[in-house]
């Protein structure tokens, strides 16, 4: 029994990603979409915190590729260990986990 969490806000603008990570459990997945994809980038003031939460918690971190491309974020800027998916991958994640929780 595991959860797919979606985050669609920039972590520099709101606390949604931080709250999501604080409530995700081992085996869960966190998918960053829309403005949330900025949370997947390396070299920011928040990168270490996000990477640590992901590593320490056994949480799979995903980012929506189409939203990355729209914002000019190329694969080279993605944090280590974050997996890029397309809309089909988003659907697979939602199907694979037992529930979806949107951190709106």
């Amino acid at each position, binding site marked *: 029994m595991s959860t797919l969490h979606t985050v669609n806000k920039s972590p520099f603008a709101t606390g949604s990603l931080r709250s999501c990570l604080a409530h995700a459990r081992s085996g869960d997945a966190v998918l960053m979409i829309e403005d949330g994809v900025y949370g997947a980038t390396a070299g920011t003031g928040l990168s270490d915190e996000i990477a640590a939460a992901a590593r320490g918690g056994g949480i799979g971190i995903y980012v929506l590729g189409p939203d990355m491309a729209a914002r000019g974020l190329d694969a080279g800027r993605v944090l280590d260990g974050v997996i890029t998916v397309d809309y089909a991958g988003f659907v697979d994640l939602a199907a694979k986990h037992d529930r*979806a929780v*949107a951190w709106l």
Partner: protein
Amino acid sequence: MSDDVKKFLYLNRKAPYGTIYALEALEVVLIGAAFDQDVSLAFLDDGVFQLTRGQDTKEIGVKNFSPTFRALGDYEVTRLYVERESLEERGLSPDDLQEIMYEDEDDDWAEKPSIRIVSRAEMADIIAAQDVVLSF
């Protein structure tokens, strides 16, 4: 769990009045109560502000919907989980929240509090136990 009873959680993370999400979440809860599902409400982050006492919206000209929370017991909505860490970060204690009671039909209709203060870890477990999570 019977096949046609699902666990529904209403996840409230936003303050009241600045936006309509809190009010329209309550409207779903009231309608949803007729469906005989297993219903809980969760209040975390700024959502805990929805439950504060003494809300008076007269001067902003917006409807005060906070009394509706006290009526939830009549709709058999009796579990309002409030996250302790969210309260603390906002300088709130459980005493700052409305008293919301329900009558427990399994315990000779004893009056009991609907608000249950839980830790962040417990909130994570509550979320993980649901079938359907509606976010507001």
